[in-house]
């Protein structure tokens, strides 16, 4: 039982860390001499490393908001898990925790989808999708599985 609990918590924290790293690191789209992400576009010109704040378009701001919301919801879900661990009756389900985690995964998915669809608009042609973008896509099924486990898990002992 304790091992299962530890496994579930580690899965949750792994999804959370992936979300964090994906949101913060500047590698959603990388090219040979430039990189851009949700927050700024950087390029290495002759003068050196030079960064501009990202376009103030509506869609990139929506992606920013969705990624931040997914992190917030995943945090709330972790907090609720520990609350419910100690207050839930025997045989009860971690329903609330699961719902928040599933919502977080949905937010990541919508953010990644919006970025995929709108990226030709603000990313130059020479750039391909970077590893932070891939992390966002990996975090989505991880968070979804974690949320589903919470929903079907029953409290024992």
């Amino acid at each position, binding site marked *: 039982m304790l091992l299962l609990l530890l496994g579930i918590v580690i899965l949750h924290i792994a999804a959370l860390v992936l979300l964090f790293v994906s949101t913060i690191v500047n590698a959603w789209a990388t090219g040979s001499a430039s990189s851009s992400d949700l927050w700024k576009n950087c390029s290495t010109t002759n003068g050196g490393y030079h960064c501009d704040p*990202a376009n*103030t378009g*509506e869609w990139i*701001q*929506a992606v920013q*908001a*969705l990624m*931040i*919301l997914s992190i*917030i919801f995943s945090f709330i879900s972790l907090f609720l898990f520990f609350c419910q661990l100690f207050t839930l009756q025997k045989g009860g389900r971690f329903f609330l925790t699961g719902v928040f985690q599933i919502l977080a995964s949905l937010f990541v998915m919508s953010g990644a989808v919006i970025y995929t669809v709108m990226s030709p608009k603000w990313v130059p042609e020479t750039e391909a999708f970077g590893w932070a973008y891939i992390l966002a896509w990996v975090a989505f099924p991880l968070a979804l599985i974690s949320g589903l486990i919470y929903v079907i898990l029953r409290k024992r002992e």
Partner: protein
Amino acid sequence: MLTILALASVILLGIVPQQSEAIVIYTGWERHALVGSDIRLSCSFFSWRWTSDDVTFSWSYRADGARDSISVFHYTGGAPYVDNKGPFRDRLEFVGNPGRRDGSILLKNLDYGDNGTFTCDAKNPPDIVGRTSSVRLLVFDKVPIQAGVITGAIIGAVLGLLVLIVVIYYLMRFLVARRVFNLSVSKHGKKGKGKEGSQQRQVPVLSIGDPSKLKATVSEKKKQESRKDKK
């Protein structure tokens, strides 16, 4: 201890008058405007002295890419003097209130050539030492949405919705619990009446009036009693 206090107060009194002589000027940081529209550039100041009759405001303008700034507005001796030769002739208007420390100007019919930095300098004799303050004017044909506005709006809306749902849930629970409490209070009241066999104590009447609801509450009471029996 007392000597330290005395020393500290003397030092403070020595520092404060020097700072109180400086005038602090406030303008915006940046202003965005559409081509052809009007914009009001505000300038206000803070000074430890009362507003004197000789208060002066002056605005100067430095175009983007230019090296020097030209003076475009001056208020002194109770009268405003607007630009009548420079780039803002017939387009500048004084809309401030010097008595209220407001030295704002209104620029009409903006054009792309008006991009630049406007500097406001205010003096409130004898309070004349202070730094000027500048506001940058940016003229667009379409005003862009500022970075972070939509982000903040989406996050705020979703979190607000979450808080609303939690509040409504707890409110419903509170209301249901209150109704159950009202019922249990009336039940205990009736029992007391039966035991004593006298009609001295008044039974608190149920808050609900119509008979259909009464039936529902009676069935609820029966359910509660049966549950208690089971336990």
